[in-house]
């Protein structure tokens, strides 16, 4: 199998997260355009300098990314719309990087943005996909809670992981969220006792295993390192990135995503080992999925993530492996497809020292993982990237 070419010469800049709240009167286009405005301001460029736009949103319809060009009065030469849920950020980054490397665009804005209204989550779940409509929703109408409850139960049966192990992730992420002001649940402390005492939603999934649907926007600009340096911007480089879709289709229940199919090559391409990863952002729609990422990306062996989270501090300042340093979705809220950019945007903040109260000390390398699209019984998209602080 051929391997992805180098991502050298590419810079990720101007991380922006905004607009997090439970519901909003605004449309998805407001969130996406607001992120764009903030990124342009932060970069000190004009709107006309942005010639590529990559967008992910569950709530943009009936509009699409091409319509946004007119909304924002921009003439663009590269467009991409990525309906990949939690994998959207890494996938947008990969495609935009190739566009800039090949001269198809100079500056690409990569943005995830979604609005949220009362009842919109139900509408999304009830009509998510044809498989889901015919073979998942009619069985209890539990939405993702049902599918992930069954993955979680199977994982516990197979590995011996306990609720307290999942709680390690949730509790440490809440601690991180308490140091990141936009996180929606950052003002509510969560102890292990609170976690364990929560009401059951879909056994064995309890309240603090579930994300809170919300609205918000996340984005970054992607350009050449030369351009970033000319603009005087702190930037992050991509050492390696890859993706797989519908990996291991014959596994009766998903106990691994696509990561084991490319993680060895990812480290080889990056030229660093797992020990050199200073912080990890997983896609945490449920704690069990973060466990699958810890295993699939080589932080521990398959089935041993419970041991890993018991023996490693996961807080941003705990000296272990800082994980989901802004609180992730579990404590920050799941802003639709923007949640697929959250970990990437937070990593760019961390590696440019622009995190505020949750800055990881001396972070050089970050692993960002994406996971998304529960078509039926499992998430189909897996992606990951290793990022490095820019400059020498």
């Amino acid at each position, binding site marked *: 199998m051929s391997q992805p070419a180098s991502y050298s010469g590419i810079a990720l800049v101007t991380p922006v997260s905004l607009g997090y709240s439970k519901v909003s009167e605004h449309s998805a286009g407001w969130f996406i355009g607001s992120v764009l405005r903030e990124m342009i301001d932060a970069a000190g460029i004009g709107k006309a300098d942005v010639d590529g736009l990559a967008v992910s949103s569950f709530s943009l319809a009936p509009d699409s990314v091409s319509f946004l060009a007119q909304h924002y009065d921009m003439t663009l030469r590269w467009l991409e719309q990525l309906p990949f849920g939690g994998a959207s950020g890494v996938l947008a980054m990969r495609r935009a990087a190739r566009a800039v490397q090949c001269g198809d665009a100079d500056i690409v804005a990569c943005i995830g943005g979604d609005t949220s209204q009362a009842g919109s989550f139900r509408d999304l779940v009830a009509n998510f996909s044809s498989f889901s409509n015919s073979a998942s929703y009619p069985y209890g109408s539990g939405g993702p809670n*049902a599918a992930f409850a069954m993955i979680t139960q*199977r994982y516990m049966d197979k590995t011996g992981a306990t609720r307290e192990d999942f709680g390690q992730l949730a509790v440490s992420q809440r601690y991180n969220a308490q140091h990141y002001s936009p996180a929606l649940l950052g003002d509510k402390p969560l102890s292990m006792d609170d976690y364990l005492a929560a009401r059951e939603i879909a056994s064995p999934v309890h309240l603090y295993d579930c994300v809170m649907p919300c609205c918000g926007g996340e984005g970054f600009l992607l350009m050449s390192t030369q351009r970033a340096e000319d603009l005087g911007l702190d930037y992050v480089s991509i050492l390696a990135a890859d993706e797989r879709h519908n990996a291991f289709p014959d596994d009766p229940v998903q106990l691994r995503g696509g990561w084991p199919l490319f993680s060895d090559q990812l480290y080889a391409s990056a030229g660093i080992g797992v020990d050199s990863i200073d912080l990890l952002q997983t896609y945490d729609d449920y704690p069990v999925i973060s466990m699958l990422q810890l295993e699939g990306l080589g932080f521990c062996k398959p089935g041993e993530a419970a041991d890993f989270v018991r023996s490693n501090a996961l807080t941003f300042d705990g000296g272990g492996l800082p994980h989901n340093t802004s609180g992730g979705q579990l404590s920050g809220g799941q802003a639709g497809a923007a949640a697929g950019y959250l970990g990437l945007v937070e990593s760019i903040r961390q590696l440019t020292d622009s995190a505020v109260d949750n800055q990881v000390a001396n972070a050089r390398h970050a692993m960002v993982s994406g996971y998304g699209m529960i078509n039926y019984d499992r998430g189909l998209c897996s992606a990951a990237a290793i990022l490095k602080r820019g400059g020498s």
Partner: protein
Amino acid sequence: MPATFNTALPSVNGLCLQHCSKCGHINYPVRELCGKCLGDSLVWQNVDGGGTVQSVTALHYPLEQNFSAQLPWRIASVKLDVGPVAFAHLQPDSVCGARITLSIAQDEAGNNVLVAKGDKDSASEWLSAIKYTEIRT
């Protein structure tokens, strides 16, 4: 109002799934082309409903009224002996690892859905308790 679902399952006694007359693959969830060979030759065929429960969840907050009569509502992920994995309404007392029989039944709203029956003696009691009817053809 109980919701209407588009399960696309036929009104047939037992279990009936899409069989590819070109490569023999049994397909589920319902689709238009064979997932194995992409052939356009799928026909509904009665298949063995035997399977093993892979995982179970009990839902406390269904989004639709159809499931509020008996909470928490239990569903299972079942690996069928004939190949596919299917979600199904699960008879009480059936647990992970249990052998079950999958068949099509009709709920109160007229939806044809998959039910996973464990203990044969009490299966019809369970179905009538949740107001599901077995399809007689």
